[in-house]
């Protein structure tokens, strides 16, 4: 019963809104290929290069794996920005994976445009394993860019009013 006793307390603590809303930080999803960009992020880390921390990184074996579904789902789930990264041309571990990545990215961009989302929320960058500084730079730039765009319409924080009022689900069959 200890958990039962604790729970109401937590809820009340959550419900009181803070006086001034804290400055907004975006949530960004970064897709990085295992051989270059992820290692580039590592380089930034071990060299202790400071950068903004508002992103989650998803490692894939090659940027060629990053199909529109990945990016679109990130947006659907409320990401404010998505960064796709991979090796420089000619450096892809699988030779032409990043060429595929470009094709997929272009397609994704078209769909994102149709949806009416700002293009600035999506970016493609090539970052090698040695480019720790560049990684930090790209992250900082992109984070600032997304911050000025504000929360995405599908970011839960902005999306209180969209849900439909709880009502009876209409039946399909008479």
């Amino acid at each position, binding site marked *: 019963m200890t958990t039962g006793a604790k729970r109401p307390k937590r809820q009340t603590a959550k419900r009181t809104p803070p006086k001034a809303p804290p400055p907004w930080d975006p949530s960004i999803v970064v897709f990085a290929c295992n051989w270059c960009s992820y290692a580039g992020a590592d380089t930034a880390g071990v060299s202790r290069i400071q950068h903004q921390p508002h992103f989650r990184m998803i490692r894939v074996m090659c940027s060629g794996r990053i*199909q*529109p*579904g*990945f990016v*679109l*789902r990130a*947006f*659907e789930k409320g990401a404010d920005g998505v960064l796709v990264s991979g090796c420089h041309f000619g450096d892809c571990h699988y030779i032409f994976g990043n060429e595929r990545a470009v*094709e997929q990215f272009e*397609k*994704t961009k*078209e*769909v994102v*445009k*149709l*949806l*009416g*989302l700002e293009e600035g929320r999506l970016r493609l960058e090539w970052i090698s394993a040695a480019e720790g500084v560049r990684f930090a730079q790209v992250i900082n730039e992109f984070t600032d860019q997304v911050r000025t765009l504000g929360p995405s*319409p*599908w970011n839960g924080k*902005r*999306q209180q009013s*969209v849900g*439909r009022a709880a009502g009876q*689900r*209409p*039946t*399909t*069959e008479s």
Partner: protein
Amino acid sequence: MPELAEAAKKTKAWACYDCGKCTATCPIARVGGSYSPRRHVLATNLGQQREIVENNTLFTCLTCSLCDRRCPAQVTYTELVRDLRELSHGHGVEPECPHGGALQSVMRMMAKGGTQQNRMGWLSQDLKTESAKGQVFYWTGCTMYYDAFFPEFQVKTLEGTRSAVRLMNKLGINPVVSPDERCCGHDLLWNGDRKSFELLAEHNVKLVANSGAELLVTSCAECLRTWKVDYEPFFGAKPPRIVHVTEYLAEHLPDLKFDTDRAAGTGPDGDGSRGPVRVTYQDPCRLGRHLGIYFAPRQLLEALPGVELSEMRRSEAAAICCAGGTWSNCDRFAKQIQVERLREARATGAQVLVTACPKCQVHFRCAMKDPNLGGEIEIEMRDVVELVDQAVGQK
């Protein structure tokens, strides 16, 4: 399991006498898939929810409704599979992400709303439309998304959309084409996501009601089914009349003036070759078996000067579907079904495979990309409306 008992009642699954005709009919089972609709019916009747949810074969069904036709006990398996998918969705089961779930994500984002889509880019200068109010609402469907998403197949579903508007203009109608249209929700509903479907349905019904339109015309067979059947509970006092663009054009056939020279002389590629063009018609499952519209598109094709319709071996109620409806399934069996269907189309000697649903185009064009079979199964694909538009020409 109360849900299962209810589904059994609603779809008459209880009446099943285990004859196995549905499985024998099913195009997936016929090309070697181990899919068995009969087993789902049986499991429903026995209340075996775990078997249904965990087995995760539900999304293999094309929902083509062929088995419904053949079932001697009139079990509507297609309705049943939809109910079962809804049940599975509640347990977190999703289709095995064809296209990485990209299209489902797009549809869900539309359901949540919050952005102004840029879906009007396809409207060319010569097309006259209204953006908010009018007598006739032209429901475009998501063809602009398909064309953007499948550039590698040279998908041109927007051509059909443009042709439809052009023809309506020629009939003296400036239809409403709204920038606020959202996905009809067909695929999400058939994937079991009823909540998102309801959001879309409410938005769309309100949009059309506010336009004051008395007639809604659409080129997409799936949108048509959704509007006619699945939106019914959402309609207010005065729902619009809903027709497919082929029905609409067939009604106005006497008013369409065909340019005989142009139509007869132009081959499918516009190469100027003389002589009639032989075409064959693919019945979209939504238009045919789901809604019983077989005649209108054929009536149009037969009326076109210089066009000769030659039917495939399996047509009308027996037609085989494009094996890709609802974006829930794509596997080697789907591919096999598509290849066989394309062979059938080629066997008619037709130069053009005509259809009345943008999705048929997407899926058959994908199958044609096969590097080994390409030459054997390739065939030009057009929408019925495109052919009508071409035949009317400048007149």
